[in-house]
C-alpha cells in the first residue's frame, strides 16, 4: 500500500506553480506575458486552481474540479473574485443573464459572459473603440440606436482618456524648471472619475456615464491646457535664449579664430614658425 502511494507520489505532481503549466501550455503563457494579469501577478492557478497531473498519461489533468474553475460559462462569477465592481455593473446591463450556469442567451448569441469582450490570457486594457468595432458589431449593426449611443460615448471617453494621460504625463515627468499649474486636484478627481467610467461602462448605460464623465473631462482638459501653456511658454523662452547664446558663441568663435590666425598663423599663414 505504502509502495503504491509512493509510486503515485512519484508520477503525480501538484500543479501549484505557473512554471509547471508553462511546460505544456506555451501558447497561453505567451499570451499571458505582458497582460494586466501578469503585471498584477495573477498566474495560471489564480483562475484555474491547482490540479494533480500525470504527465505520462494521455489526459494529463486527473480531476476536472477545481482545475476547471476558469471556464467560459462560469467566468463572471470567477472574475468577480477580483473584479467585483465590474461584474456588479455588468449585472445592470441588458447583456446580463441571471442564470449563469445555463447561459442560454449567451449560448444562443455565441456570447461568453466576460469573455465576450475580454481575452482571459491576453487581458490588455480593453480598447473601447477596437472592442466595439470587433465584437459589439456582431449583434449591433451600423444603423442601430445602440451603435449611435456607443459612438457618442466613445467620442467622449476617448478624448477624456487622452487628456487625462497628457495631464498625468505632465505631472509624472514635469518639464524641469517649469512651475506646476496647481493641477494635481484635477488629475486626482479625473483619475477617480476615469476609474468609475471604466467600471460603469460594463453596464452599457452610456448616457448615465456621460453625465458623470462630462464635468470631470472639462476640468481635466482645462488643467492639461494650462500646464501645456506653461510648458510651451518655457520652451519658447528657452529656444530664444539658446539662439542668443549660440549667436554670441559663434561671434566669439569667429573673432577668436581670426585673432589666433592673425597672431600665430594658421592654414593661410603656414610660415608662422618660431623666429
Amino acid at each position, binding site marked *: 500500500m505504502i509502495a503504491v502511494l509512493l509510486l503515485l507520489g512519484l508520477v503525480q505532481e501538484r500543479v501549484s506553480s505557473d512554471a509547471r503549466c508553462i511546460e505544456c501550455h506555451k501558447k497561453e503563457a*505567451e*499570451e499571458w506575458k*505582458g497582460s494586466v494579469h501578469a503585471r498584477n501577478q495573477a498566474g495560471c492557478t489564480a483562475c484555474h486552481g491547482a490540479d494533480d497531473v500525470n504527465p505520462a498519461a494521455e489526459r494529463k489533468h486527473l480531476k476536472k474540479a477545481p482545475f476547471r474553475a476558469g471556464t467560459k460559462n462560469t467566468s463572471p462569477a470567477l472574475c468577480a473574485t477580483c473584479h467585483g465592481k465590474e461584474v456588479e455593473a455588468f449585472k445592470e446591463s441588458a447583456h446580463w443573464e441571471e442564470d449563469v450556469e445555463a447561459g442560454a442567451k449567451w449560448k444562443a448569441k455565441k456570447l461568453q459572459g466576460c469573455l465576450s469582450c475580454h*481575452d482571459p490570457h*491576453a487581458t*490588455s486594457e480593453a480598447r473601447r473603440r477596437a472592442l466595439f468595432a470587433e465584437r459589439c458589431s456582431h449583434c449591433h449593426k451600423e444603423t442601430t440606436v445602440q451603435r449611435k449611443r456607443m459612438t457618442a460615448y466613445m467620442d467622449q471617453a476617448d478624448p477624456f482618456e487622452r487628456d487625462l494621460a497628457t495631464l498625468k504625463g505632465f505631472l509624472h*515627468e*514635469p*518639464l*524641469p*524648471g517649469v512651475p506646476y499649474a496647481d493641477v494635481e486636484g484635477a488629475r486626482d478627481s479625473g483619475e477617480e472619475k476615469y476609474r468609475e467610467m471604466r467600471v460603469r461602462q460594463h453596464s452599457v448605460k452610456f448616457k448615465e456615464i456621460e453625465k458623470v464623465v462630462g464635468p470631470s473631462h472639462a476640468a481635466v482638459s482645462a488643467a492639461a491646457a494650462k500646464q501645456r501653456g506653461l510648458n510651451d511658454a518655457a520652451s519658447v523662452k*528657452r*529656444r530664444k*535664449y*539658446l539662439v542668443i*547664446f*549660440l549667436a554670441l*558663441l*559663434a561671434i*566669439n*568663435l569667429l573673432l*577668436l*579664430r581670426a585673432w*589666433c*590666425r592673425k*597672431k*600665430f*598663423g*594658421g*592654414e593661410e*599663414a*603656414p610660415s*608662422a*614658425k*618660431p623666429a
Partner: protein
Amino acid sequence: MKRLWAWLEARLGLSMFREFGNQQLHKPVPAHANYAFTLGTAALVLFTTQVASGILLAMNYSSGLEKAHLSVHRITYELPSGWLLRSFHAWGSHLMVIILLLHMARVFWYGGYKKPRELTWLFGCGLLFTMLAFGFTGYLLPMDQVSYWGTVVATESFMGLPGLGDSVGHVIRGGAEVTDSTLSRFFIVHVLLLPGAVVGLVAAHLYLVRRLGISPRESVTEEQARGYENMMKESGVPFAAHLYREVTTVLVVLALQVTLAMLWPFALGEPATPDQTPKGVKPEWYFLPVYQLLKYFPKLVGILLVNAALGLFVLLPFLDRNPERRPGKRTFLMGAAGVALLVTLALGALGYVADRRFGNWEFDIQGRPHKVEAK
C-alpha cells in the same frame, strides 16, 4: 597696466610663466594634425566645466537615502536655473565619454600609442576608466528609481563571483545591499577621490604629450632613425598655428552641451523604492555592451572575457610590435579593431533593445525578438 605688471613681476616673477606659455605655443606639432587632434583639449575643457558645474550642484545636494532625491528635486524644479545646471552636468558626462572614446580612436588610427608613447596611452586609459567611474558613481546620486536600480544591477555583476566577488561587491556597496552607505561612498568617490585622480592623471598625460610630442605619421623605426626633433624642424608647424582648431572644437563642444541641456533637460523620476523593481532597468549606455555580454556567459567566464578584452586594449602598445603607423600598413590590426568595434556596437544595441517592446516586437533580456500579436 605696465606698472601693475612690473609690480607683480618684481614679486611673483610672472615672466617665467609667460616664457613657458610662449615656448608651448611655438612647440612644433606634426603638419598632419587636424581637427581630430583637438579632442584631448576638448576633454580637458569639458572636465573643467564639469568641475565647475559639479561644485555648484554639490552646494545644493544632500547625500542621504531620502534627502538625496529631495535635494535633486529642489535643484531640478525649484532652484533658479537649477534644471539647466544639472542637465549641463549630466550631458557633460555623456559628451565626456564620447569625446574620450573618439580621442582614443584617433590615437589608435594614427598609431599614436606606439614607442615611445606607451605611457601616454596608459595614462589615457587610466583617464578613460576614471571618467567611466565618474559616470558610474554619479548615476546613483539623484536616487530615483532608474538610478537606484541601475546601480543595483551594475553592482550585482561583481557579486557571486567565486573568490573575492562578494567582498568586492560589499566594498563597492558598503554592505550587502545598495543603501545610504553606498550613496555616501559613491558621493565621496565622485566629488573627492576621482577629481583628485583625474588631476594627477591629466598632469602626467599632458607632461608626456608635451615631452614626447604628438606622434608623426612615419613609422617608429623612421622616427628613431631621424629623431623627432629633426622631423619637426623639417615639417612641423608651431602649436600656435594649430590653436584656432582647438578653440573651434572647444566652443563647438560647449555649444553642443548647452544646446542639449536647454532642449533636452534631464527630468527626475520617482524616488528610489528598494522593494519595487521597475521594468527594463539598465545601466548607462556606455556600460551596455559589458552588461549584455555578461548575460550570455556564466558570470565567471563573462567577467574573465571582459577583463581579457580590457587587458588587450590597455596593453596594446606592448602587444602591437608592428613599427608602422599608417593605417594602410596595419591591415590586420585595423581589421581586428573593426570586428571588435562591430561586436561592441552589436552588444550595445542588443543591450538597448533587450527587455523592451517596439511595435509588435518584444525583445527578451538576451535581446532575442519575439513577435507579439497586437492586442
